[in-house]
């Protein structure tokens, strides 16, 4: 069944030809390469590693970054559309691209030395190296500033010790961007995962993001050379600025997951007959469909405008929080309501809605939970921080 995403307000006509072509390319890639395998990947808890070279070939890794690193130098809206189309397939595939792009390539680009950029960025863009981003710890999630991971300056090198938790791509990564405290201040370090003392056991038996690898990172006195420090940033704003990049993509991605759900559920409600009529002909079902369509349309408008702000250079982290919070929250609720409309079929893996629903539970939590974004926007509006 061909995917027909909702475009109630003709957002398509706002796109440039390039943006439309980017969207089309990724849409076809997802339809041809991801959709045929995603059910099995989800069942087997397997990330489709074989698609990484294809993603790289298409230019999906680090797409907004400069051509001199082998990237496509895309604008924010085109980059957003990549996330949207990938997540209509699966949040796991989008997570992979978000992490590689926004959380691994971005800090190297923004805070790295020329040598670090020249070495790492082309390899990450080509998918020759896979990266992960280690911020969260077992005891520090929403409050990453409390992290315990430490770096100690040993004169000729640094020694890193600590444990990171819930790290996307951890087990399959060649390189980790690890955030650790050096003399009490948060700094970013490029840690090759084959270094002595580094291990990344996978977290098994997840109910969510099953087609994505999530791991602990264990750093047992890992020695890294001095040149692996990211010199350009100190403090929590380092990792938070990366999260702003990734959250931007997530806000777009959520629209894709919600659109996939809506397409499936609308089609189903028109063909499922109860009481001699399609269930779409009942007012209660229509009410749900209308609510879903309205939320999707609002989400589309939020990210489109957010993209314009990003392009203009006036986007603030709080703007991104609003879109991440709203769009992921709405997508999750849309998936739950959609699952209900599918009835018993909704719990079968024949339908994609349940998988999206389960995935969105993670997406709602990671990169700042829904409530943490409430507090971020709340502080922005009132000037009063309500975190503690």
């Amino acid at each position, binding site marked *: 069944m*061909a995917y*027909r995403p909702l475009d109630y307000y003709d957002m398509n006509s706002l796109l440039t*030809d*390039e943006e439309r*072509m*980017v969207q089309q*390319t990724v849409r*076809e*890639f997802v339809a041809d390469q991801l959709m045929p395998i995603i059910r099995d990947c989800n069942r087997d808890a397997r990330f489709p590693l074989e698609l990484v070279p294809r993603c790289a*070939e*298409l*230019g*999906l890794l680090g*797409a907004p970054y400069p*051509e001199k690193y082998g*990237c*496509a*130098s*895309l604008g924010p809206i*085109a980059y957003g559309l*990549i996330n949207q189309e990938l997540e209509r397939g699966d949040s796991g595939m989008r997570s992979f691209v978000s992490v590689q792009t926004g959380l691994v390539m971005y800090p190297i680009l923004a805070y790295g030395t020329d040598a670090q950029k020249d070495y790492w960025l082309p390899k990450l863009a080509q998918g020759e190296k896979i990266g992960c981003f280690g911020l969260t710890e077992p005891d520090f999630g929403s409050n990453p500033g409390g992290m315990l991971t430490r770096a100690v300056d040993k004169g000729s090198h640094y020694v890193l010790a600590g444990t990171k938790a819930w790290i996307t791509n951890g087990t399959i990564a060649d390189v980790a961007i690890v955030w650790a405290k050096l003399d009490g201040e948060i700094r970013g370090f490029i840690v090759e995962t084959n270094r002595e003392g580094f291990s990344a056991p996978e977290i098994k038996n997840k109910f969510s993001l099953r087609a994505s690898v999530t791991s602990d990172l264990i750093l047992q006195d890992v020695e890294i050379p001095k040149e692996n420090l990211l010199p350009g940033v100190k403090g929590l704003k380092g990792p938070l600025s990366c999260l702003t990049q990734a959250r931007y993509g997530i806000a777009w991605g959520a629209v894709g997951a919600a659109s996939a759900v809506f397409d499936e559920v609308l089609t189903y409600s028109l063909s499922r007959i109860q009481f001699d009529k399609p269930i779409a002909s009942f007012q209660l079902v229509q009410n749900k469909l209308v609510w879903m369509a309205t939320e999707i349309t609002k989400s589309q408008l939020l990210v489109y405008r957010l993209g314009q702000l990003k392009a203009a250079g006036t986007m603030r982290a709080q703007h991104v929080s609003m879109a991440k919070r709203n769009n992921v929250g709405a997508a999750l609720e849309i998936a739950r309501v959609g699952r209900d409309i599918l009835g018993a079929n909704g719990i079968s893996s024949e339908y994609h809605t349940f998988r999206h629903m389960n995935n969105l539970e993670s997406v709602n939590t990671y990169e700042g939970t829904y409530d943490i974004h409430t507090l971020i926007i709340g502080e922005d509006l009132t000037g009063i921080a309500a975190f503690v």
Partner: protein
Amino acid sequence: MNILVLMKAVADSEATIKPAADGKSVALEGISWVIGPYDEYAIEEALQQRDASGSGEVVAVSFGGDDVPKVLRNALAMGADRAVHVKGTVSFDPLATARVLAAAVKGMNYDLILCGKQAIDHDHHAVGVMVAELLDIPSVSVVTKIERAGDKLKIEREVEGGVEIVETAMPCLLTCNKGLNEPRYASLKGIMAAKKKPMDEVAAESVASQVEVLSIQSRPPRQGGEIVGTGVEAVPALVKKLREEAKVI
């Protein structure tokens, strides 16, 4: 090797096609335009042959109205070097189209012309070979494999129940079939690079159509089915109906 690809902007196969108000044309609102699927094989093959030969250029040529540049941009994004938009209105008559295209490419420098075996709108299977005829160059249709042998080409084409292998000198024109290759996606870098590639617009020669479309009609909607009965007991009645009423067995 210099290769021309003749391609047509056609309605996306997902589009719902309806007759326009005049009853003689197709309603075009809301249709998205794509490269014809057989033309995609032609572009892919052109890119592969150019790259294998190590030199030359691929020029995408398309005849049509305002929807053409977008579709040509796609060919550039896939990797064509430049594009020529032959601007004009395409009629139903394949010979008229072939004359326009032949006139447009006549002065161009080419070793090979590739196009799809058919455009999926009018389905004439005719324009490619007619262009070859008008240019007085050899043509081979429904091609599934192309191998370069010096200045000749060894070509496989599909025939009923088998494969025919032929050889022809260049320049020549080949119409491409499914199976020839696996068309690539336009990469994001390709899409960005396409912005900077040249696209020339030339006016189409005016050629009168010798065929007139009298009317375009939708098929009458399908009638609902009839349930003859259920289970094994219904089989004789069903067979009887299939034989006597539907006359299909």
